[in-house]
């Protein structure tokens, strides 16, 4: 493997990992802080991709599609939390699994009714549709670099939100002692609603920006959901930092696995998870 090829795999692995982080960070917050097992999280990724495709074909601009799509996913998150999720905080995980599994079916059916069952491609915006040459016959697409940069910026913004802002303090306080946070005047239901909406929007956004790379197809949320649960378990439930580390680990492991040991590539993430859990049963990091 020469250097340029290695570099390409490395960038691909990081880009994939950063994308996973967007989906997994919301999943880990919703699971770790609100106590909700959200199987529908992959559906938000799928919805994001379809929104990007359909809005981009209407507006002829991926950027406009994403802006609109983010607004819609935030609203969807708020509505879902208000209508359904908040009635399940006190319930057993089994009820949550049933509810959110039901949501997957509902979202897939809605997708089928609204957008049909075809596979679609989303063009990379003209401005970013070129590649940086690395060697004579290898080059790297700029769009992937841009995605990685956007993901990194979002990760930084999330870090600042949680570590430096008032809302972040409330989220952390609520995650360590919910009753005490409430007794200090924090409206924990509102905080939860914001976390859920943030999680939905991040997953949707990941689907939107990745649409030009992955194409848009039915049930595309399923695979992402499973990988993201692996990320959450490896990183430690409720830890955003852990989600970041685990996402990058898995992104790199899967990317390099596919080129180096293609025979077992499908198992690599699970082997990684097993190894981490043997070493640290609680995952790499603790809750916020």
């Amino acid at each position, binding site marked *: 493997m020469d250097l340029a090829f290695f570099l390409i795999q490395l960038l691909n692995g990081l880009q994939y990992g950063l994308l996973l982080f967007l989906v997994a960070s919301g999943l880990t917050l919703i699971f770790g802080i609100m106590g909700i097992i959200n199987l529908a999280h992959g559906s938000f990724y799928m919805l994001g991709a379809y929104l990007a495709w359909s809005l981009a074909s209407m507006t002829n601009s991926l950027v406009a599609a994403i802006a609109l799509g983010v607004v819609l996913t935030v609203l969807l998150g708020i509505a879902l939390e208000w209508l359904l999720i908040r009635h399940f905080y006190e319930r057993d995980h089994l009820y949550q699994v049933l509810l959110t599994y039901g949501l997957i079916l509902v979202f897939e059916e809605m997708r089928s009714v609204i957008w049909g069952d075809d596979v679609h491609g989303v063009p990379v915006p003209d401005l970013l549709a070129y590649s940086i040459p690395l060697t004579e016959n290898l080059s790297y697409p700029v769009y992937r670099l841009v995605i990685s940069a956007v993901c990194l910026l979002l990760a930084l913004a999330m870090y600042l939100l949680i570590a430096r802002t*008032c809302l972040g303090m409330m989220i*952390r306080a609520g995650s360590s002692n919910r009753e005490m946070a*409430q*007794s200090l*005047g*924090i409206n*924990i*239901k509102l905080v939860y609603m914001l976390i859920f909406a943030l999680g939905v929007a991040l997953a949707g956004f990941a689907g939107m920006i990745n649409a030009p790379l992955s194409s848009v197809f039915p049930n595309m949320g399923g695979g992402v959901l499973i990988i993201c649960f692996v990320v959450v378990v490896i990183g430690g439930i409720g830890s955003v930092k852990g989600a970041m580390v685990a996402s990058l680990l898995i992104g790199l492991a899967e990317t390099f696995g596919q080129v180096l040991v293609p025979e077992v590539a499908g198992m690599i993430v699970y082997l990684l998870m097993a190894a981490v859990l043997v070493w640290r049963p609680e995952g790499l990091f603790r809750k916020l």
Partner: protein
Amino acid sequence: MAEALLAARGLHTYYGASHILNGVDFAVGRGECIGLMGRNGMGKTTLLRSMLGLVRPRQGSVEVRGRDMTRAAPHAIARAGIAFVPEGRGIFPNLTVRENLVMAARPGVDGRREWGYERVLATFPRLGERLDNGGAQLSGGEQQMLTIGRALMTNPDLLILDEATEGLAPLIAREIWNIIRGIRASGIATVIVDKNYGAVLGLADRCVVLVKGCVVFTGTPGQLADNEEMMQRYLGV
């Protein structure tokens, strides 16, 4: 007594099938200091939690400033001017000392800003030395100071202290009592639950004794101290 700051009427609270509060009436007026007393397991904490919206009473009502808040969310009750220092403290270990204080900052119900970050640190100079420590790195006494300081950051009209000196070394406990005395003198109403009956009797305007979820005595500390049966049978003194 004028309109009560906090008033409970006929509270019945259950944990599952066990009937913990048996029709409790309880009221705190402005600036009043109430000693809530009773042996272990008599329902003191349950009464406080029922009034704070942390457990739902099955029957009865809770009013804050004359407004019915029986079914209100705990944060709404807190925002009506009631601060709580719970049993076992309740600092946030994953927040620094500074964050523990800042996250609670808010003006009082009438817009008062008597208590702020500076004044809390002046009252608890030890906390000033530990601002960047995580809440869990503090000693028991410091944690208790942090919880009280944090409660004051909300500029409450009523401060509820559940076992604030429990498990503290005598010297630290004395420091906490001095601070509670100062808080009381500043005009903030207080409800104090504490095993140190002497200190409670010395501080309270009124004492309430709970036995198995019923109020068996309400009166001044003097009346309670003179009532030998009450002191022996129900408080074990």
